[in-house]
C-alpha cells in the first residue's frame, strides 16, 4: 500500500504576497505591470526581504518607475552600507578572537548572503552571529569586552557560569558597540541545540560542510516554526544554487535525529517554491514523518509570527524529536538553568548549583504560564 506523504499545513499567500514570493524565488518572475511597486516594496519590507525584491525589480526589464519614492533607494543603500560594516567587522572580530586563541565560526550573516545571492547587499542582517565552543566562551567574551563591546544581556554574569547554560536557538548573551556611529550587535552562540555537535564538527573541519550548514539553516527555520519568510527564501536559494549531496544530507539528518526537521523543511519549501528535490530523498525522509504534529508547529510565513504559549512551544519541539533518546534529552534540557535563570537570582560562585533550584521553581511556574524558555518568535538569533 502506498504511504500517503506527510504534508505541512498549506497557507496560501495573498495576492501581494504571491508577487513577493515569485520575485524572491531562485528563478524570479516579475509582477504584471499593473502591480504598483510601492505596496510591493512595503510588503517585502514587512517580510524582511526588501533588499532582494528592490534589487530584482530594479534589475528587471521593467525597472523601477520614476514615481517610486527615493526613500526606497536610500533604504537599500543603508542596508548595503550596514552589511558592508558587518562584513568588515566580522572579519576583524574573527581575527581578534583568533589572536586571543578563541576558535570561532561565523553563522549565517554576510557570508551566507554572498554565497546565496552573490552580493552581501541583498539580504538584511541585524547582527553578527558567531559560534564559539562553550569552553572558549569566557575568553571570547573577555576579548569582545576588551574590544569595547558591552553586554546588553546576561550583564554581570560570570562567563564560566554562562557557558554552562544553554538555550535552544538563542544566544543568551548579546553585546553591542557603536562602530562609526552605527550600533553593531554581536551574538556569541555556544550551543546549537538540538544539534549541539554541529558547531564543534564545523570548527574541527574549519568550516561547515554544505550539508551541515543546510541542516543548521533547517534548524533555524524550525525555531521560528517555518514562519520566517526570509529563512525560507534563504533555504530555497541554497537548494537552487549550492550543490547538495542529498544522499549525504539525508544520512546526516538521520544520524543526528534531524530527519523530521529536514522533512518538514523540504515539504514547506516545496509548497512555496519550485525546487529540484529528489523524490528518493523525500521518500526516505518520510520514514521520520511525524505521526502527530500540532498544526501550529508550522506557522504561516506571510502572517506575523505570534508566540505560542510555553506549553505549546515545548509540545511542538518535543513532537519534532523523532528519537526516544532525543525526547528524553529534551526533557532533561528543560530542567537545565538558562542564562535568564542565572540572572534571576545572583548567587555566590560556590552556590551556583542553586540556580538549578531556581530553574525548577520557574519551570513549576511555567505550568501556570510563567518562567518559560523563550517562545520561538522571541528567540530569533
Amino acid at each position: 500500500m502506498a504511504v500517503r506523504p506527510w504534508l505541512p499545513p498549506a497557507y496560501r499567500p495573498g495576492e501581494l504576497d504571491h508577487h513577493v514570493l515569485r520575485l524572491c524565488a531562485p528563478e524570479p518572475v516579475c509582477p504584471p505591470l499593473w502591480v504598483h511597486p510601492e505596496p510591493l516594496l512595503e510588503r517585502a519590507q514587512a517580510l524582511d526581504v526588501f533588499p532582494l525584491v528592490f534589487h530584482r525589480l530594479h534589475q528587471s526589464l521593467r525597472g523601477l518607475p520614476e514615481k517610486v519614492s527615493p526613500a526606497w533607494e536610500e533604504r537599500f543603500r543603508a542596508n548595503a552600507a550596514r552589511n558592508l560594516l558587518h562584513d568588515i567587522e566580522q572579519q576583524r572580530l574573527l581575527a581578534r578572537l583568533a589572536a586571543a586563541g578563541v576558535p570561532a565560526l561565523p553563522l549565517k550573516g554576510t557570508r551566507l548572503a554572498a554565497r546565496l545571492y552573490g552580493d552581501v547587499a541583498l539580504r538584511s542582517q541585524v547582527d553578527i552571529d558567531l559560534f564559539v565552543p562553550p569552553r572558549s566562551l569566557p575568553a571570547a567574551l573577555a576579548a569582545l569586552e576588551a574590544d569595547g563591546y558591552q553586554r546588553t544581556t546576561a550583564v554581570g554574569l560570570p562567563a564560566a557560569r554562562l557557558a554552562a547554560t544553554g538555550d535552544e536557538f538563542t544566544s543568551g548573551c548579546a553585546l553591542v558597540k557603536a562602530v562609526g556611529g552605527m550600533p553593531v550587535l554581536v551574538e556569541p552562540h555556544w550551543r546549537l541545540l538540538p544539534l549541539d555537535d554541529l558547531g564543534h564538527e564545523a570548527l574541527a573541519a574549519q568550516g561547515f560542510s554544505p550539508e551541515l550548514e543546510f541542516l543548521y539553516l533547517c534548524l533555524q527555520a524550525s525555531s521560528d516554526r517555518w514562519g520566517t519568510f526570509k529563512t525560507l527564501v534563504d533555504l530555497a536559494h541554497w537548494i537552487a544554487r549550492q550543490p547538495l549531496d542529498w544522499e549525504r544530507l539525508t544520512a546526516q539528518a538521520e544520524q543526528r535525529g534531524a530527519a523530521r526537521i529536514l522533512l518538514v523543511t523540504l515539504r514547506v519549501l516545496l509548497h512555496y517554491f519550485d525546487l529540484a528535490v529528489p523524490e528518493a530523498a523525500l521518500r526516505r525522509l518520510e520514514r521520520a514523518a511525524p505521526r502527530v504534529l500540532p498544526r501550529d508547529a508550522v506557522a504561516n510565513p506571510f502572517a506575523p509570527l505570534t508566540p505560542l504559549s510555553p506549553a505549546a512551544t515545548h509540545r511542538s519541539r518535543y513532537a519534532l524529536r523523532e528519537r526516544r533518546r532525543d525526547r528524553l534529552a529534551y526533557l532533561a534540557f528543560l530542567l537545565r538553568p538558562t542564562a535568564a535563570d542565572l540572572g534571576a537570582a545572583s548567587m555566590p560562585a560556590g552556590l551556583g548549583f542553586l540556580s538549578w533550584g531556581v530553574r525548577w521553581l520557574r519551570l513549576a511556574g511555567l505550568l501556570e504560564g510563567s518562567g518559560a524558555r523563550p517562545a520561538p518568535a522571541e528567540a530569533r538569533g
Partner: protein
Amino acid sequence: MSPLRTRKVRPARDVVFRELGGEMVLLNLHSGVYYGLNESGAQMWTLLAELGDPARVVAALEREYAASRPQLERDLEALVAVLTEKGLLEADEN
C-alpha cells in the same frame, strides 16, 4: 589649469568600499557616513583610489568615454568636491 590637476587625493582613512547591489558603496567606518556611486562614479572612484592624481584619472577616463576632456574634468571635480565634503576623500600631501 584646473585645480583638479594640482592636488592629489586618496580615500580617507577608515573608508572602506565595495561594489554592492549594483553600485559602489563607500563607508567611513569612523563617522558612519556612506555614499553610493553609479557605474561611472564607481569607475572614477576606483581610478582615484588607484592613481590618486586627478589629471591621470581624467586621462584614463578619456580613453574609455566619448565625453570631452573639459566635461570629464567638470564631472570629476564635482565628484571629488562632494566626496571630500563628506569625508570620504582627503588630500594626499605626499
